């Protein structure tokens, strides 16, 4: 491109990065309370602070951090938690695949850094903004989201002391409310509605039909229901658009 020389100048790079930071403000505003809720939830389950804070720093994935805390508390095995997290986050594979087609940046170092910050929310912004062709823009977007997530976690962890027990007990719903809030708006398309229903039916069958006689952990049930429901969906809905 003719503008490639211009776009590599330091001042232009800085302003692209700053534009990304600004584009990420809505994500940051959304993340802080959820991260606070995560910190509070982990606190209410007596997870060590250092573990909670390093989860937000090293993992940076809302839903899997919540489910990890949940699975730890229900006594799941570590390999089950790791497998559940891997399956849960396999959706980022598609998002990164889509981003890889959009981003014109070729620096592998920059791409590897951007990859760490791919979340449902940063992806949704990156895939609707023209500027996201620049890797630095996406880096700015991911950076502010990462900062908000970590600051929120710190607030949650160190605020939890003063919270009344009943409010702390109410935080248990936060994770599920987030999942419901992510799933419900997508149920308007037929394939998504059916796949979600398959998953719930399989979960019900496993939970009430199989587990009483042959114990299966929460983590394994989630994996079985997810893979079977998504597999059925991929077979049944050959023609229709998923979203």
């Amino acid at each position: 491109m003719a503008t490639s020389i211009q776009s590599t100048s330091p001042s232009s790079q800085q302003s692209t990065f700053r534009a990304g930071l600004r584009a990420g403000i809505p994500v940051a505003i959304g993340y802080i309370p959820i991260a606070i809720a995560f910190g509070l939830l982990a606190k209410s389950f007596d997870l060590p602070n250092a573990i909670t804070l390093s989860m937000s720093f090293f993992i940076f994935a809302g839903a899997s951090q919540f489910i990890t805390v949940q699975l730890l508390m229900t006594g799941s095995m570590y390999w089950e938690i790791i497998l559940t997290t891997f399956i849960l986050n396999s959706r980022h594979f598609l998002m990164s695949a889509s981003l890889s087609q959009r981003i014109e940046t070729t620096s592998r170092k920059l791409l590897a850094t951007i990859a760490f910050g791919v979340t449902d929310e940063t992806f949704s912004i990156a895939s609707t903004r023209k500027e996201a062709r620049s890797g630095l823009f996406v880096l700015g977007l991911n950076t502010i989201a990462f900062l908000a997530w970590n600051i929120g976690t710190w607030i949650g962890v160190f605020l939890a002391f003063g919270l009344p027990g009943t409010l702390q007990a109410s935080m248990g719903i936060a994770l599920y409310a987030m999942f419901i809030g992510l799933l419900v708006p997508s149920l308007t398309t037929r394939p998504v509605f059916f796949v979600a229903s398959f998953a719930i039916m399989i979960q019900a069958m496993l939970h009430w039909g199989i587990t009483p006689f042959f114990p299966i952990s929460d983590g394994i049930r989630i994996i079985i229901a997810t893979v079977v429901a998504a597999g059925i969906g991929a077979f049944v809905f050959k023609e229709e658009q998923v979203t």
Partner: protein
Amino acid sequence: MISLFLLVLGLALVTYLPRVIPLLWLKDLALPAYMKRFLSFIPYAVLASLIFPGVLSSTTTTTSALFGGVVATTLALLRVNLVVVVIGAVFGVYAFQTLL
């Protein structure tokens, strides 16, 4: 504590791999259509599996958890911001447990 920290590092690795592999190596690889559909259904299948039946035991009583689930679903149907869904459900459960 050490084993928990190793778990966090393991989780960091399995979270990072699906994020980084396509960005670095999938640029030119074409996935079969079935695989694409399967992967695109994963988010919805996993969300539904996570919600049910786990939501029923997410608070101290099944009824307050159900109430929280109904509040979250209602708010989600109204297409409000995700944060409002989460905070609304938490305070819904809190109000339910305090008042009833």
